[in-house]
């Protein structure tokens, strides 16, 4: 229903804000994964031996057969290949980087699932599926996914 003219004079728009503290427990598996990046500069994954699938990021159980694989850690390479990507062309305060930047899906050597992360040090015009990239780790402790700072071309 559209407003009648006389109604609109009493329409207000109120500016408001909501500020809520929160935290996220990464869990035992997620913590191990990030700590291996931080302390050993290594990328790891969880492997289902039965289905021969290595999950990166690690998952508690195999998504194919449902078996619990929480302890079956394997090392994967710090290099891999871009299997898909997008170029972020707009700026927003919630985004991790200034536009334009590349968000790639990288299948690491030895992994079977792609890891989504930032690809840097390459012109957006040159990025392509099949491009070989390597992981660049953050220097200090970050304790989030950004412990792996970005990927760059090999």
């Amino acid at each position, binding site marked *: 229903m559209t*407003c009648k003219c006389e*109604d*609109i*004079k*009493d*329409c*207000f*728009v*109120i*500016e*408001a*804000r*909501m*500020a*809520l*503290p*929160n*935290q*996220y*427990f*990464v*869990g*035992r598996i*997620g*913590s191990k994964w*990030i*700590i291996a990046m*931080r*302390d*050993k*500069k290594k990328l790891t994954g969880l492997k289902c031996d039965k289905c021969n699938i290595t999950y990166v990021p690690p998952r508690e159980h195999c998504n194919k057969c449902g078996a619990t694989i929480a302890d079956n850690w394997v090392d994967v390479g710090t290099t891999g290949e871009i299997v898909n990507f997008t170029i972020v062309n707009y700026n927003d305060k919630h985004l991790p980087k200034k536009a334009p930047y590349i968000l790639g899906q990288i299948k690491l050597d030895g992994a079977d699932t792609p890891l989504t992360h930032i690809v840097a040090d390459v012109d957006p015009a040159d990025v392509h599926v099949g491009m070989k990239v390597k992981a660049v780790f953050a*220097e200090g402790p970050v*304790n*989030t996914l950004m412990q792996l700072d970005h990927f760059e071309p090999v």
Partner: protein
Amino acid sequence: MAEFFGTTVADIFNTMPKRFKPEASKGVDVVIGYDCGGEGGGKWKLTVKDQAARIETVEGDLGPCTATIIASDAETFIGVTLQKIGAIDALSQGKMKVIGDTRMLMTLLPQIFVQYTVPAKKTEVTARGILSAIGERFRPDKAAGVTLKYGYDLTGEGGGQFTITIANGTCTLKEGLDADLAVKMTMEAATYVGMMTGTIDGAAAFTSGKVRIDGDMMAAAATGKYFDKYVDPNAEEAEELLSLKKITSINQRFATGPVMGKWFAGLREKKLLASVCPVCRRTLILPQEICQFCHVRTKEYVELGPEGYVTNFDLVYFASPDPLSGEVRDTPYACAWIMLEGATPEDAFAFEIKKEDLPKLKIGSRVRPTWAEKPTGSFRDILYFEIID
């Protein structure tokens, strides 16, 4: 002294000055008494004033305190401090009591003190031990093409002088300081160990003068990246669980529409307007477009109050964050339900009561609104309701 969870009550208090956050204690002026019973207990008094904290042990009476925290035994006190025992459980079971302002325990203390942690067990790590194994941590891939010679002059117990040479993709260590060092770092051996095991922050140690750097500053800063991080071999492998903490802040805009808008327009003229159901004659405050019972559109408005009487109220001691600002509210405060003059019996109006009037607030109190000097059509136009009888 009695030890629980690997530490003592005394250590919690002794580390308080170190854990104090002066910048977070602006305007805080409190005295908190602690009375911990049983073996390993005692009495302590914490004074926070002018952004300084003083802790003292007390014999006999604690004297006047803003709040007193009483624990039945040392195990409870330490357990709650370390969050091994839930504070709510201890309070509920009567093993812990808070006399006075409970806000201290829930909101103030965590703000002005860094959380206490059990001191790390002493390990056999020495500066010499760390340096002698430096070759194992060397990363030739990171140091490709790098030629660098740098030295450590480590003073105090367990100290010594060492020269590290990086060249041709190898790393060698020898005792003594060569003359042609690119950079020399001088510090106490204990500081070096602390930096390597992560208990001392390198940048902070340098800033505070604990580390002296002679020579090429950039070379000194670069040394870390030619090596894997040192892993303390003697440290117990405690499981580290990560969590991500953040404050999600979202800007919002709300359109009032013409009915709710009438309310805000009314506020500008210091009027409390309700919409009236044409069928059941209920006064809907704040005004609503539809009567939920009769399912008809409301068309007319009526001014209610401004005076009324209190039907129910919440006197709030628990300090929760104001969701609009994120700031913790001052307690106590009261939210009262008010029957405004002219309102139908099931339709109360809720608002805050003037702070100074809280002692005389009771069900049945007559109240009237106090308005802001210049109402603008916002929820801040009414300051509070004051008691008039």
